[in-house]
């Protein structure tokens, strides 16, 4: 991400339009040059590196683009460290201590020479000019670039484009995401990131028309606050992994900028072409679910298994079931497969189901789960919620039996 002074955007009426760099010959070339500055700059002081970067500031893209790219290279791909043969604090104490007993600027050379000689006696060979150059080795600008992992020029440009959009969200006080027909695993990952960044979510809508997720934070209740804008910015790369979405942000532009409107909006959707650098979380790989869906497809039944599910709001969160079963006559039921999970997860899941008020739900629970040890009882579930316990893998027939009302028999059949 970028600091505010390196953001580039303009207002079109009350809409913010962040600058986007095309991945053309000129920009790729500039990115490559800057990457080379860093690659060739390993071992240099930060200030020297900045000077080399500054030499590219005359580029047609403008100095702010150059500084932004360099900022990302320094913050995301580089390691800087302090390097000095003597701890600078100790060196300063020696130099200033000696200088305070001698008079005036004239004795400067003598002080440096004497400190160098002292250090020499202690086994540290330093020239007087090295004594001076290391005097402030602990200042950020004197830190040395010790490691650089170069991105490709395209990666760098993608990172810059994403950072510009993230920067727009710094000033956001409300974020609405519309999502439609997505794999439940993507929703799960999205909700995990919301939680990670401390955002609160309210869900409206249904599977047929899509969902609206409204994001803000605890104190937003009292006053719209840009406090959570940074969290929203961090959240954006996670949203990019979701297949079909659009977002709308309400912004409060900085008041000290000329030409900024009182309030502004920003919109973006899944066709934006931005590239996320967050990893797709393996925890949400839907292998188990996909296998079940494949088995269901072989079953001869009118019940259709859908991956587009209802997001079920519960107090303080959302449950994302794995499937929705839809019958042509209009009946529909949610199916949640509970596989191998930690006790705390199980407790939360059961608590969630209890508070959701939803009864059109089938829970498929593996008999390997030690429900007693987790402190949950199947009998605690609301009336109407049906349970299928299964051994090994979940058979579609067992679920179908429950759907058709042969509850007891199905559970037994699955167990046998």
């Amino acid at each position: 991400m970028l600091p505010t002074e390196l953001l580039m955007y303009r207002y079109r009426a009350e809409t913010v339009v962040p600058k986007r760099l095309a991945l053309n010959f000129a920009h790729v070339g500039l990115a490559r040059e800057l990457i080379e500055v860093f690659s060739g700059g390993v071992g240099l002081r930060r200030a020297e590196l900045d000077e080399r970067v500054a030499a590219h500031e005359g580029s047609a893209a403008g100095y702010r683009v150059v500084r932004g790219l360099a900022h990302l290279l320094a913050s995301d791909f580089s390691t800087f460290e302090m390097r000095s043969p003597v701890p600078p604090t100790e060196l300063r104490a020696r130099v200033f201590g000696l200088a305070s007993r001698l008079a005036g600027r004239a004795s400067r050379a003598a002080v440096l020479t004497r400190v160098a000689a002292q250090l020499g006696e202690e086994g540290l060979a330093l020239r007087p000019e090295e004594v001076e150059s290391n005097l402030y080795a602990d200042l950020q600008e004197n830190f040395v670039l010790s490691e650089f992992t170069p991105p490709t020029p395209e990666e760098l440009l993608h990172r810059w484009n994403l950072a510009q959009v993230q920067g727009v969200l710094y000033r956001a006080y409300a974020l609405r995401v519309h999502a439609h027909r997505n794999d439940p695993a993507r929703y799960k990952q999205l909700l995990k990131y919301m939680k990670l960044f401390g955002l609160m979510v309210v869900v409206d809508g249904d599977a047929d028309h899509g969902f609206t997720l409204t994001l803000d934070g605890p104190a937003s209740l009292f006053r719209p606050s840009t406090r959570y804008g940074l969290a929203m910015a961090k959240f954006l790369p996670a949203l990019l992994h979701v297949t079909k979405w659009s977002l709308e942000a309400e912004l409060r532009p900085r008041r000290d900028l000329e030409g900024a409107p009182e309030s502004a909006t920003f919109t973006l959707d899944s066709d934006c072409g931005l590239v996320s650098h967050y990893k797709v979380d393996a925890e949400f790989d839907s292998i188990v679910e996909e296998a079940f869906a494949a088995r269901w497809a072989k079953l001869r039944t009118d019940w259709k298994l859908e991956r587009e599910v209802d997001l079920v709001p519960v107090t303080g969160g959302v449950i994302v079931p794995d499937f929705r079963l839809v019958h042509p006559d209009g009946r529909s039921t949610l199916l949640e497969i509970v596989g191998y999970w930690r006790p705390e997860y199980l407790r939360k899941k059961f608590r969630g189901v209890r508070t959701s008020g939803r009864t059109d739900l089938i829970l498929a629970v593996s008999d390997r789960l030690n429900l007693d040890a987790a402190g949950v009882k199947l009998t605690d579930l609301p009336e109407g919620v049906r349970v299928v316990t299964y051994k090994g893998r979940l058979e579609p027939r067992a679920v179908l039996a429950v759907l058709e009302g042969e509850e007891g028999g199905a559970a037994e059949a699955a167990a046998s």
Partner: protein
Amino acid sequence: MTRVSSARSQPTLRYERGTLLLHPAPAGQGWAEHAQWDDRVGRFRVPAHRYRALLEAVRRDGAELRDEARDFQELKLSPSRFVTPYPHQTEAIDAWKRAGRRGLVVLPTGAGKTLVAQLALDATPRSCLVVVPTLDLMHQWYAGFLATYPDAPLGLLGGGSKDDTPLLVATYDSAAIHAERLGNRYGLVVFDEVHHLGGDFNRVIAEYSIAPYRLGLTATPPQGARLRDLQGLVGPLVYRRTPEELAGTALASYREVRITVQLSAAERARYDAAIATRNAFLRRSGINLGNLEGWRTFVMRSGTPEGRAAMLAHREARSLAFGTEGKLRVLEELLAQHPEERVLVFTDDNATVYRVSREFLLPALTHQTPVKERVALLDAFRKGDYRVLVTSRVLNEGVDVPEASVAIVLSGTGVEREHTQRLGRILRRAEGKQAVLYEVVAEDTTEEGVARRRRGQEPASPVPYLDEITPDPIDWEDL
């Protein structure tokens, strides 16, 4: 099927990320004006800064409420050194206590606001957060507390430190970033230079805090709506003294000497060339730097290669005017003229601090100076082991080195006239001390131009809102 137990549990107040959750609702009605239903969690939510008012209302109703929000501690501090306060300091702290240990105290720079804060700490044995605007001030308060309360659990938040102690000194920036986490841990919050609190970013420090006791200190309170806003966050204006009212008692009187230096012929040539480059661009673009509008246009145009060159030329001219070799020669001479006295050298920016430090081999103090070294430097300066300290002008918000009798301000500009006066006040009053402040400026540069537009002194104003303080019928807590 068994349902969730419907037995009504005890009304409880919890702290959640800068807010309070109230569930289930207590008896009585007083709580209701502070709470708002939050559908997202199915609970009542209360702004954290209403904590005290809420509990007072519940107490008034005689209702039960379990307080799980409060996480602040008792903290009994025993000062190891006792400084006799000036009458205005005692009066200020008494007024603050009478207002229920909430409120704003307005005193001029150099009038000893730090001691007022220490008196508040001594009188309020609760974990305490002190918020300050700059890293320099953070280190300075830290050093002061270290000397006064050597055994206190003291820590820093900001500038790379992230301590978690019952007595914590933090910058506004860091305290705002961590506002949700800090909010319920401190019973007393002291806002130094409290006028920094009003902004969108910083105000959460007060809003997300449940601290029942709050003290705001400033020399320059805002007016009107912004003052009322601060009063809402911290408390009423309880005490105010102007520099005139304190002149001759607490504030040092000092002699001011202005020294104008000339650029060398080479510097002059570089300066003129840079100004010519800049002015040619301004003329071509029809920009007039005489007003703020013109300056903004200049900054906006500096994105173009031409504008960029002009801006760089402007900066070069500025740096020539500010950091000229001539000024360093004057500095050398002044240091020689005061061979025995304690001298503070102020510059316009950190780059100049380090330049002076390197050239003269003088110890430097900036926000980048490590904490231990800072404490050691100030200590050595007080003892006289170091006679001269170089520091950037950001220290103007109340550096605490009473031993200094000479201040040398390099590159002071007219615009920051007030700052120069504030620096002068650093030269605190001491028996038989004749303090002197040198202001060293370059001649015939833009700097000289701005120096002519000095601001006038603000008129002394009466204390408004003092009559708004009404004693609370219910004692918050007997301390």
